[in-house]
């Protein structure tokens, strides 16, 4: 447990050597210079291909629920490089019964300028999700003050017709590749709603109606569960601003139910819970 990169790497070597972890999930160089991708290290000799810099943006928590990978954990723990958003993902997955948080050893880090190669990297203390409770509370109290919030405000000032036209135009580029679903740690359903065809709720074809339905439903299924890691928006080949939808939902559940996704590994999912005095301003 250290707070320099060298100490993190030393720790991964230690964990692999003593056999406490079956693998270390981190980043390696991608196919071109400015890309990084996930890497799965099982032997100490493979550690040299790991990198950690500002281009390491992907939320790796996604891999903790990939079944092909889970089989190779072999009863041992797994060490994984995660930002605070990733730690929140682990909390949600644990709360939803998908993983055991005691089997995850966290190598925490944050980039000062995510997306930029020369960004400084700060290592975080704490190998278990519980150690991040305070920093997650701090994130919660900061709320959603960012560029996206400004765009959301602008959208809400438009009329419903204008908003519909905006989103119809955005979704018209969707090709239903489902990359957004694939990279999301929260999309772990073995049979996605869009795969159901008896009855078929969502048109699977890539036309405007089906695209609207898919993106709408995915945003709803992520309400109160999205940690804002941005995997989906980065993965989208059509450049759809998915995070606008997801952040709007995160803002909604925070405002209405004081719910912030991933606070702890025992937090009840927001739509699986209720309070006697939940707000109901619009109900007749």
């Amino acid at each position, binding site marked *: 447990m250290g707070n320099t990169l060298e100490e993190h790497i030393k720790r991964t070597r230690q964990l692999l050597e003593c056999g406490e972890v079956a693998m270390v999930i981190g980043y390696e160089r991608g196919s071109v210079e400015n890309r990084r991708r996930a890497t799965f290290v099982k032997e100490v000799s493979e550690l040299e291909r790991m990198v950690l810099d500002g281009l390491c943006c992907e939320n790796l928590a996604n891999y903790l629920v990939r079944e092909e990978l889970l089989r190779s954990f072999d009863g041992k723990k797994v060490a994984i490089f995660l930002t605070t958003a990733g730690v929140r993902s682990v909390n949600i997955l644990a709360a939803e019964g998908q993983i055991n948080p005691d089997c995850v050893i966290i190598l925490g880090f944050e980039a000062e300028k995510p997306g930029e190669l020369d960004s400084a990297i700060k290592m975080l203390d704490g190998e278990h999700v519980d150690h991040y409770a305070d920093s997650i509370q701090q994130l919660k109290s900061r709320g959603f003050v960012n560029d996206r919030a400004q765009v959301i405000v602008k959208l809400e000032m438009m009329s419903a017709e204008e908003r519909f036209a905006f989103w*119809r135009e955005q979704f018209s580029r969707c090709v239903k590749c489902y990359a957004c679903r694939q990279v999301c740690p929260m999309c772990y359903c073995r049979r996605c709603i869009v795969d159901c065809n008896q009855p078929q709720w969502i048109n699977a*074809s890539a036309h405007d109606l089906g695209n*609207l339905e898919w993106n709408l*439903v995915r945003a709803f299924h992520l309400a109160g569960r999205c940690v804002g890691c941005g995997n989906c928006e980065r993965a989208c080949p059509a450049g759809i601003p998915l995070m606008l*939808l997801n952040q709007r939902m995160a803002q909604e559940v925070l405002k209405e139910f004081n719910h912030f996704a991933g606070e702890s590994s025992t937090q009840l999912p927001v*739509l699986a819970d*209720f309070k*006697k005095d939940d707000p109901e301003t619009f109900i*007749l």
Partner: protein
Amino acid sequence: MTKEFEPKIVAFVCTYCTYAGADLAGTSRLKYAPNVRIVKLPCTGRISPMFILKALQKGADGVLISGCHPGDCHFTSGNLHARRRWTVFRSLLNFVGIPDERIWVSWISAAEGNKFAEIINEMTEKLKTLGPFEPYKTLIRDIESPAEI
């Protein structure tokens, strides 16, 4: 002579309160707009957002979701789950441009036959002034009509 626009309303209601309330409106011979198509479910907790999407997909101009008052749910807490769900889903629909005025949610008990009739009449009037849900109708037409070369 042009026909006046008649909105199509789909109402998803719970069996033990709102459906019984609608029944009471019927047996009391209350007049209410015939524009509503009622879908009976055991509880509002069972109403999935997919149903609303399906209704819109099939050409509904407005959707009503109605059930027991909080505290009176036949299944104890189904409507309390529904309350959270509709808060979130309605705000999402509104954000995407499906306006609040087309998605109505109410608590109507088995004794409130009058309230049921009133809400249906109010909703029908409001939707008549709003007009058909054109943006969605163009989406549907675009995929159902044959391609033009």
